[in-house]
């Protein structure tokens, strides 16, 4: 808890300009957070549409879904879940570090979050690669013969669409976190102003949230 070495070389606190249409810095910060929450609302509905498609197709082809999901590797999916949860912890700790004005510690936690995100995508790559190899591809590209039930290609359409869109969101999150890392390195943030890191954290937690629902629905059907 004692942090003697970290903050010794901090320069003066970064002061962020408050735009004229806000009452004060607090009002500006609250508005930024509200904006991000509204965006997260749209993201919930975006993935919600895909979850609805999942629900419909699963209700139409329950046995096929059960058979097809066995092609997925539960171990890799579980590891990915653990990786994302850990990345959420490090993201939250990055924000907390900047609440204390600890620049280097913030950069450390942001880097850790990035690292876990990369691990997530690497594991995803191996999962996809295996499916491509077997011909378990979405929709009209599907050629694998080993799954019983009608329309097995539908499961993989749903799988690739949902995990693919989620993966793109992970990539976007990584870009945002990288930007935060850069700006932290340039001493743009302080214990008084760290709003961009905070809203990036909100986005990243939502990406984790979506995966928390994706994982049991795709990997743990029974």
């Amino acid at each position, binding site marked *: 808890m004692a942090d003697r070495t970290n903050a010794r070389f901090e320069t003066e606190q970064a002061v962020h300009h408050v735009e004229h249409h806000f009452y004060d810095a607090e009002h500006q910060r609250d508005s930024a957070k509200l904006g991000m929450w509204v965006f997260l609302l749209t993201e919930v509905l975006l993935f*919600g549409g895909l979850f609805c498609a999942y629900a*419909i197709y699963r209700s139409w082809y329950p046995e096929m879904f059960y058979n097809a999901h066995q092609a997925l590797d*539960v171990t890799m999916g579980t590891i990915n*879940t653990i990786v994302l949860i850990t990345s*959420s*912890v490090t993201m939250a700790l990055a924000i907390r570090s900047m609440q204390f004005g600890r620049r280097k510690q913030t950069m450390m936690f942001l880097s850790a979050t990035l690292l876990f995100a990369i691990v997530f995508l690497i594991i995803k790559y191996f999962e996809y690669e295996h499916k491509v190899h077997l011909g378990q591809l979405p929709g009209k590209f*599907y050629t694998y013969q080993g799954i019983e039930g009608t*329309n097995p290609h539908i499961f993989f359409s749903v799988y690739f669409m949902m995990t693919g869109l989620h993966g793109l969101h992970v990539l976007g999150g990584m870009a945002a976190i990288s930007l935060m890392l850069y700006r932290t390195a340039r001493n743009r943030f302080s214990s008084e102003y760290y709003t961009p890191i905070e809203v990036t954290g909100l986005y990243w937690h939502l990406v984790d949230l979506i995966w928390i629902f994706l994982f049991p629905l795709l990997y743990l059907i029974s």
Partner: protein
Amino acid sequence: MKKEHDTLSQHHILPLKVYLGVGAALLVLTAVTVWVAQFHFGAFNIIVAMGIAAIKASLVAFFFMHLFYDNKLYFAVFAGSLVFLAIFIVLTMYDTERRAEVYEIEAHPIEAKALIYQTTPDTAAVAVPEHLDADSLPTDSGSSRGH
């Protein structure tokens, strides 16, 4: 505890224990989810899985995303998204599930244009046929109707 070199935000700072504790709880719940999935409770399985996922989501939202401590407006926005999502899925599934009561539906159609239904049982992966023939419907078991 205000340190000499640490500056301190005026905003509410959660203790480290809370973040680590919630993280640990999330990992435990993940293990529980995987463990429970091996049992077959029929329709109950998905309820249990979604229930655990909802608890994990609440932990992330209330603590990592600070919803518990923040302005209630953010919670209203987030809860609103879940309400509309619920309306979306519930009404859609209600309609989908009960369509057979209104229309003559024997079975859901096979997507005959799918590539797998263009191959013969002997071949594995083949090239996409140039012309998709509507007559080459699969002779699948039983009562399916194709397009």
